[in-house]
């Protein structure tokens, strides 16, 4: 398919515009949150939540079967409480047991993967579902009205909460001990961060795939940190980089037949990250 064909076909064009719209919302949220997760050494949280997201998608798939297409279209929302609960559980495991964050995540996420796979296998009997849930839809689909509503709803909540709690999120990320000593309810805002991460993961699962979404969280933040040195600039750069990568990635998956969106976006992120790692800012 070439560019003239795309832009002369209105169905394909609406498909492209729809994917782009959803993709941009996801990438803005993921990149905002990514900076905090990377700096707080919670990168693994995004990864773990993605696996749990996979498990929750299996449950959503069952619901789609049970309640039919119409209600089932909103099944992604079933994932919201599940992933939020998991995010809070991982945080608590991390604090209480003195388990290193990554082993806490490993325990919860592999269990969710296993449960999810078993559900997919026995309840739906469809292994293509497994693949697309993990790595994103294999080809572009016109986003349904339900997809758009769900994504806009989730993205709006993440953006609003993030902007209003920006100052507290910075405080908790930069120096938790100081913040706690000066009277900030740090546990509460750590939970807020975990919930935002959960919402972002849920948002991105369907289009980009559960496993790919954590790349979208981590890469833009790391790339932005190579070129900027204040928190606000890193956040802004991260959003710009992420949006650029998503647009490019979707375009590539549009032009190259058989290129799934998730991996395409992640690969563009990887290329940009490597580029800036080589040509990094002058430290002085």
């Amino acid at each position, binding site marked *: 398919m070439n560019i003239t064909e795309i832009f002369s076909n209105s169905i394909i064009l609406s498909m492209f515009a729809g994917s782009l719209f959803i993709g941009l919302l996801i990438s803005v949220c993921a990149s905002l949150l990514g900076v905090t997760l990377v700096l707080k050494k919670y990168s693994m949280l995004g990864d773990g939540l993605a696996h749990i997201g996979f498990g929750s998608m299996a449950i959503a798939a069952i619901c789609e079967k049970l309640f039919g297409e119409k209600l089932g279209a909103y099944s992604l929302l079933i994932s919201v409480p599940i992933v939020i609960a998991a995010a809070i559980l991982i945080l608590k495991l991390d604090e209480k047991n003195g388990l290193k964050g990554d082993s806490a995540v490993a325990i919860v996420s592999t269990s969710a993967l296993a449960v999810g796979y078993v559900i997919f296998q026995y309840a739906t009997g469809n292994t293509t579902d497994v693949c697309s849930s993990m790595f994103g839809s294999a080809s572009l689909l016109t986003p349904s009205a339900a997809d758009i509503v769900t994504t806009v709803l989730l993205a709006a909540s993440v953006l609003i909460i993030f902007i209003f709690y920006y100052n507290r999120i910075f405080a908790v990320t930069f120096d938790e001990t100081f913040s706690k000593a000066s009277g900030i309810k740090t546990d509460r805002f750590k939970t807020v961060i975990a919930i935002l991460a959960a919402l972002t993961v849920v948002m991105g699962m369907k289009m980009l795939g559960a496993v790919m979404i954590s790349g979208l969280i981590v890469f833009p933040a790391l790339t932005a940190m190579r070129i*900027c*040195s204040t928190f606000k600039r890193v956040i802004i750069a991260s959003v710009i980089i992420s949006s650029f990568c998503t647009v490019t990635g979707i375009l590539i998956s549009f032009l190259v037949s058989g290129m799934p969106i998730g991996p395409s976006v992640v690969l563009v992120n990887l290329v940009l990250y490597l580029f800036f790692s080589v040509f990094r800012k002058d430290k002085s």
Partner: protein
Amino acid sequence: MKNEIIVCRNVSYSYGGKAALKDVSFTVNEGDYLCILGENGSGKSTLAKILLNLIKPDSGSVEYKEMKNTEIGYLPQTSFIDPDFPASVYEVILHGRCNKLGKGFFYSSADKAAVDEKMKLLDVAKLKNKSFTSLSGGQKQRVLLARALCASEKLLILDEPVSGLDPIVTAEMYDVIDKLNKDGGITVIMISHDTKTVAKYANKILHLNKTAEFFGDTEEYEKTELYHHFLGGCGHEHH
């Protein structure tokens, strides 16, 4: 007699059955400069954590009077902060005002004015837009002290504020803290193992070795066996 602001009664704490603090009692008055001395493993940092409300004592109590237990300006050891964290000096100091946000979400012009004032006071105004990571050790400590002052004008808790600084910067840092205490009237609690220097500035000493081996005025402390023993010991260790 000045007002008591912290009363610490029979505080004990243990980590998995191993006692870190036993039955420690002391009081801090408004305007005091208290130094908590002791060797590594003497329970200094545990006591600091308790004073900062990061952990709760197993028994005993810490009572804050005429101030909330959250009105504390804390200066951590620089090494506690991620050396690669991207943040400007201004961003670092500004979040000291985070506890003044109350139910609000964004910093007011009063918050920003307070930051400007503290930056001037600590002579870091020209570093405002610099990256925190790029500063020298002494500059970092000044910035963190400005942040602590944004969080509280009543009580500063300083954890080894000069560790890792060269002698000149160390002396400057001690002077700044001393001025804040004497001229600014702010109460200072400092954790240190630098017995000799500290005696010059502090008016009270708490010497810890899991229990409180000494608590009282600095002049009294200098007469004790403990002081001379500790001085001798430290001298050998560090030079």
